[in-house]
C-alpha cells in the first residue's frame, strides 16, 4: 500500500528542499525555473523512492512531472508502486 497523501506531501517537500538546497514553498517551480537541473531530477526520484519505500517507474515520466510539490505528489499517487 502507498503511504497516505499527507505523508507523500511531507516527503515530497522535504526531498525537493534537500535537492534544491533550500526550503521549497508551495507552488514554487523547481524544474521550469531552473532551480533543479535534469541530472538532479533523477536524484529527486531516487530520494522519494527511499523516503516512501515506493518504486517510481520512470518510463512515462518527464522532468516537468516534478515541477512543484503538488505535481510531485500527484505523480507519485498516479504511478508509484509499493517497493517489493
Amino acid at each position: 500500500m502507498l503511504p497516505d497523501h499527507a505523508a507523500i506531501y511531507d516527503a515530497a517537500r522535504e526531498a525537493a528542499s534537500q535537492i534544491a538546497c533550500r526550503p521549497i514553498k508551495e507552488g514554487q517551480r523547481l524544474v521550469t525555473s531552473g532551480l533543479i537541473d535534469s541530472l538532479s531530477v533523477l536524484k529527486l526520484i531516487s530520494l522519494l523512492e527511499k523516503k516512501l519505500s515506493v518504486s517510481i517507474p520512470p518510463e512515462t515520466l518527464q522532468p516537468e512531472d516534478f515541477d512543484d510539490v503538488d505535481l510531485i505528489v500527484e505523480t507519485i499517487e498516479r504511478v508509484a508502486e509499493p517497493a517489493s
Partner: protein
Amino acid sequence: MITRDEFRRELRERLLASDEKILLRVVVHPDFDQPKEFTGKALVARAEQLARSYGISKGRAVVLLLLPHSPELVLLQLGLVLKGHIPAVLAWPTSRVDAEKYQRNLVHQLSHLPADQLITLPRLAENLAGSVRCQVTGIHLENSATFESAFPAGPLSQQSEQRQAEAGSSGPLSDDTLFLQFSGGTTGAQKAIAVGAEMLSQQLRRLGEALEFTADDVVASWLPLYHDMGLIACYWMPLWHGASSIQIAANDWVINPELLLKYVSRCRASFCWLPNFAFSYLSQRREFMRSSFELDSVRAWINCSEPVRRKSINAFSNTFADWGVEPKSVQASYAMAETVFAITQSQLGKQISAIPRACVKQSSQAYGHLAFDLIDDVYVSSGKPISGTEVRIVGADGSICPNATAGEIHVRAPFLFSGYWGSGGFQTNSLVDGWHATGDYGFLANGDLYVIGRFKDIVIVGGNNIFPEDVEAVVNSIEGVYPGRVVVFGVEDTDYGTQSLAVVAEVKDEFSEEKAVQAEAAIRKLVLAAIGVSPRHVAVVPARWIVKSTAGKISRRETRQRFLQERTAVSLEGGCGLAT
C-alpha cells in the same frame, strides 16, 4: 583521396547492400518498446524521400536541422548528405525553456550562421519565418504536437536582429564538405566544423581498425546528433560499416537511464559510448532498477567527452559486474569535433592504464593559472593515438614536453579540420604547421595520452561544452544585474564525475535580499532558455564582491576560489549554497 561524390555513392551502395538487415532503430517516446526500425534499403529510401520533400531545391545548401529526437531528424541528416546538401544539427531545446526567450536567443544564434535553410517543426517555422533570413521549412512529425506545445503560435513581436549573416554563403566551404558539426554543443556563439568526405572516411576507417569494428557490431546510444560522439561514433560509424545502431533520446535517457541497458540487453549491443558522468549516473541508479539486464555482449563501454575519472569507471564495472560488465570492457577515448571524432583509443580487451598524480610533472609554473581543480589522485589513460594520428605535449615556452610531463595537448591527423565556419564565413587560420592546439591539458606516458582538464575556461557539463562567455553575455542582459560584473565557471560534481555550472553576478544598485532573490530567479530562467542547461549554483552578490586581478581585470579563477571558500563555510554552518 575520396571525393564527396564518391563518398556519397559508396555510402549509398553500402547501405543498400544491407537490404534486409535492420541498420537503425529509433526509440521514440512514449512507446519505448516499439522502436521505428529501418533496413538498409528502407533507410536509403526514406532518407532520400525526406530530403527531396523538405530540402531546398538549390544544388548545395547549408541546411540547419532544429528538430527533436525523431526518425525524421536521424534520416534527414543522412538524406541531405546523400542529396548533396550540407546539413548541420542544432540542439533541440529542453521542454522546460521559456518559449519567447528561447526563440529570441535562437534568432540571435541564427543571425551568426550563414545558412541557406532551417528545417524545424511547423509552429516554430511559422514563428521564426519573419525573423531569420534563410528559408524556413516546417516538417510535421508524429509527435510534433507534444514538442510544439511549449511554443505558443505567433510571430516574434519584433525583428530583434539587425545583424544577419549572409544567407547562401556556403561557397567558401571546401568542395568535399559533407556536413557540419558544432564544436561547442549547445552554446550561443556557434562555431561549426566542416566535415569533408576524406576526413570522415579516414576517421571511420582508422577508428574502425582500432576497435576491430565490423558489420556485426551494434551500437546503443542516447547521445544527441548535435554532439560529435552521438553523430560520428554512434551514428556514422555503424552506418559506414554496415552495422546497426539504436538511437534513444537524451531527455528520455536522463529520466530513465535503464532504457539504454534495456536496449543493450535486447539487441545484444557491442559498443556504447558514454561521457564520464554517465558511468556514475547509471551506477547510482542501479539499486532502483526494476529489471535485470544481460550486458555481457558489450565489447567496449567507451568513456569519452569528459576527463576519465577512475571513481566513475570503477563504480560502473563493480556495480554491473553481476550483469556481465567486465573491468576490461570499460575503455576510453579522447575525441573532439575538430578531428571529426577520435584521436586516441584504448586497447580493447585490456584494462585501461592509470598513473598516480605524484608521478606527473608540470612543465611550467606558467600553468598555475589553470581554472580547473586537479581533483584526481590517479589519472586514467585515454589510450594511444589511432593510426596516422600524432599527439604532442607542448609546454608554456613552446617546447615539447618529455614523458609524464603535463602541458597543452596538440594534435595532427589526416582527419583534422582546416577551419571553423561561423559568422565570418569559413576561417582557415586555426592550425599552426598542421597542428591543432586543443586547449586541453594532459600528458603522454609510455605512448598513452592522459587528459587532465582544460586550459580554456570551458565548462563541461555532462559531456557538453559550455563557454562561460556565452552564459555571461546572457546574464549581463538581465535587469538588476550589473553589466560586466558577472562570472561563470565550472564546479566539480564529484557525485557524477562531471562539472556543474556556477554563476556569480553582482547587483546593479544597493544590495537587498529581495533583489537578490529576483535576480537569481531571472538568471536561472534565462540561462536555461538560452543555453539549455540549468546553473546548479547561482550567487547574487553585492557590488565589488567579484575578484579583480591587480591589472583591474575580472579574475574568473580568484572569483571561483572565493565562491568555493564561502560556500564551504556556509555549508559547515548547515546551509547550502552561498549566503549573500
